[in-house]
């Protein structure tokens, strides 16, 4: 079956779709704000007349390449291409500023590729086992994992934990705008029909990261790279290969977050970054251009993206909104996801699996060829880069729904994002709150319903309680450590004084 699948996937027409999908995905991914959702949704109608295998291969290529291309904007202009690339900015951009944009692009290319391969291996080898773990998680556990992601992000905000948590709360509040998920009652719309659909995510993210960055760049002048060099892509490769521990840790985080329906991508890169920072002997170097700080989120993101397909193919439950489109494509082409897909579709599942693997190679090779050219973007004078970002942000925010109001939302959040950047408020926390809001609220309601109105359900289920305790411990640990270190220093000082007196 595997051989048959390989032969079908390697047919010239499928290889052509693979290359076209990759090229298209890289271009869309590189545009700020336009991520996998936009690219895959746009590609879906093009697959109508295709063979099912070709259609899935094209979508897989677009999906993988867009996710990788998302990191270009994160590294080069400090603007996440999508919610899955938020953490890639934190060390990727400082590397670009230090004249190592090429090195960062190399780390990103190899990291994304390895993440994709790790995700693929888990997809074909250990998916049933992973799904069993995921199925043990109920609403209370999902609620706690989402809270944990928000808290960890706040913790990663370099000593601005309270501000980070506050902004996470504001993000959650923003996500409540629109219809209530349970009662469909309109909330916080201030009478505007436009707000009944909720606050649009892409325009908000574009404003917070892209347009705020425009104002910062205008005050700096010059160009992004403070040194007029971009470094070599190969150096990034060598650096990445010297970090096997990071690869394993981030891979595990990525796969696990990928199989959790709806939670994955937004949290995977952030959790991987935080796990890596915790594991590092020099956490103080994170945020200043630390290669591990870029490698970990890149691996986790791509492992998660492929891992996302596990529940989609195996259970027929989409892991994210993008894989929901995959599901739609499968149904559109007469395929039944779930166990039947594996039992009654002949060599097709294997063709799809080989196609997904080939998509990883395709974006890796094409990305490598383009990485150094893209990296040179940091040498463009800010005088030209600023209007370029503004125009792409306007198009990006308008393209998804065609509302001029979305452009206005982008500009409003651009100004708020600029103020947050200036005063050290971590905007990523707000975005994560906005992304997770629906999920957190729906699972909160479900849990309370299951618990018959009691909040005790969050603390009586062992897994939920464990996640809660881990979250609290993570939040309190830095302060406890500081307290213990302070007491130790006091004791040593006292002992020293005593010995001097003696």
């Amino acid at each position: 079956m595997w051989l048959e699948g390989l032969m079908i996937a390697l047919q010239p027409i499928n290889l052509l779709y693979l290359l076209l999908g990759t090229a298209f995905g890289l271009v869309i991914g590189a545009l700020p704000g336009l991520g996998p959702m936009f690219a895959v949704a746009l590609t879906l109608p093009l697959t109508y007349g295709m063979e099912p295998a070709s259609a899935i291969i094209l979508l897989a290529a677009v999906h993988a390449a867009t996710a990788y291309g998302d990191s270009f904007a994160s590294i080069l202009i400090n603007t996440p291409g999508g919610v899955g690339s938020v953490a890639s900015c934190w060390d990727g951009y400082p590397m670009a500023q230090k004249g190592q944009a090429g090195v960062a692009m190399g780390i990103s290319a190899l990291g994304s590729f390895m993440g994709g391969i790790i995700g693929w291996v888990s997809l074909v080898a250990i998916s049933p086992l992973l799904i069993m773990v995921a199925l043990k998680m109920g609403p209370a556990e999902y609620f706690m994992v989402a809270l944990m992601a928000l808290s960890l992000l706040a913790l990663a905000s370099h000593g601005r934990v309270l501000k980070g948590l506050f902004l996470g709360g504001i993000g959650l509040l923003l996500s409540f705008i629109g219809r209530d998920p349970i009662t469909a009652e309109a909330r916080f719309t201030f009478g505007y029909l436009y707000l009944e659909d909720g606050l649009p995510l892409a325009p908000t993210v574009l404003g917070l990261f892209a347009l705020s960055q425009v104002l910062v760049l205008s005050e700096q002048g010059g160009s992004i790279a403070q040194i007029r060099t971009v470094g070599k892509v190969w150096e990034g490769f060598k650096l990445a290969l010297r970090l096997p521990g990071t690869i394993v840790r981030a891979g595990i985080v990525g796969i696990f977050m990928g199989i959790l329906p709806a939670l994955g991508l937004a949290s995977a890169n952030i959790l991987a970054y935080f796990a890596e920072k915790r594991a590092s002997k020099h956490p103080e170097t994170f945020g200043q251009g630390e290669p591990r700080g870029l490698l970990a989120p890149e691996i986790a993101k791509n492992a998660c993206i492929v891992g996302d397909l596990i529940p989609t193919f195996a259970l027929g439950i989409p892991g994210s909104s993008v894989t929901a489109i995959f599901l739609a494509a499968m149904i559109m082409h007469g395929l039944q996801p779930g166990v039947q897909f594996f039992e009654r579709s002949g060599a097709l599942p294997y063709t799809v699996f080989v196609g997904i693997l080939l998509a990883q190679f395709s974006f890796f090779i094409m990305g490598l060829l383009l990485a150094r050219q893209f990296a040179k973007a940091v040498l463009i004078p800010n005088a030209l880069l600023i209007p370029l970002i503004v125009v792409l942000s306007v198009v990006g925010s308008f393209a998804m729904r065609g509302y001029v109001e979305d452009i206005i939302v982008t500009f409003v959040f651009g100004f708020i994002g600029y103020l947050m950047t200036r005063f050290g408020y971590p905007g990523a926390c707000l975005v994560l709150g906005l992304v997770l809001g629906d999920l957190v609220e729906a699972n909160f309601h479900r849990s309370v319903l299951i618990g018959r109105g009691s909040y005790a359900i969050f603390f009586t289920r062992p897994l939920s309680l464990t996640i809660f305790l881990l979250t609290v411990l993570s939040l309190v640990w830095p302060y406890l450590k500081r307290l213990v270190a302070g007491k130790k220093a006091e004791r040593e000082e006292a002992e020293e004084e005593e010995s001097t007196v003696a």
Partner: protein
Amino acid sequence: MGGARRMAILEGFLLLVLGGFAASFLVLSWELGQTAAMFPRLVAGVSLALLALAIVFQLMGRARARKKPLGTVTRAPDAVPWPAVLAAQIGYIALVVLVGFSLATVIYLAGSPLQMRYRRWGVLGAFAILLTATVVASFTYLFHVRLPEGILWSSLKSRY
């Protein structure tokens, strides 16, 4: 000193916007049904408490030690103050709404670099025209996305 005061005012403005936002959600939640209001009310309350704590800690920190100036950046000779760039952006949106995306974008792409004292006219002209043409062509013909055509153009079309 003036700069520090302006920064304090700006930060105060940011906190006012964010805090005001959370407070208005808390107030508005009383107009909603029990189920729809429960979680937003909880989040708004916790957010306001966190904000209050953050402000208290910040004030205590300020009292203890003089803070280093915020937002110090290395400025190149072509640096421009942010209000000027923000004003140009607002002008650009107004133009997009009025005359449509294509014309507004050519004007903005040609004019904005001048703000940062960029004077290579050939590059500027090519940049404005080629970039606009590429974006408009790819979004219109490749992605089939309709870009804003502007009130003026729409009214002209409906008249003739």
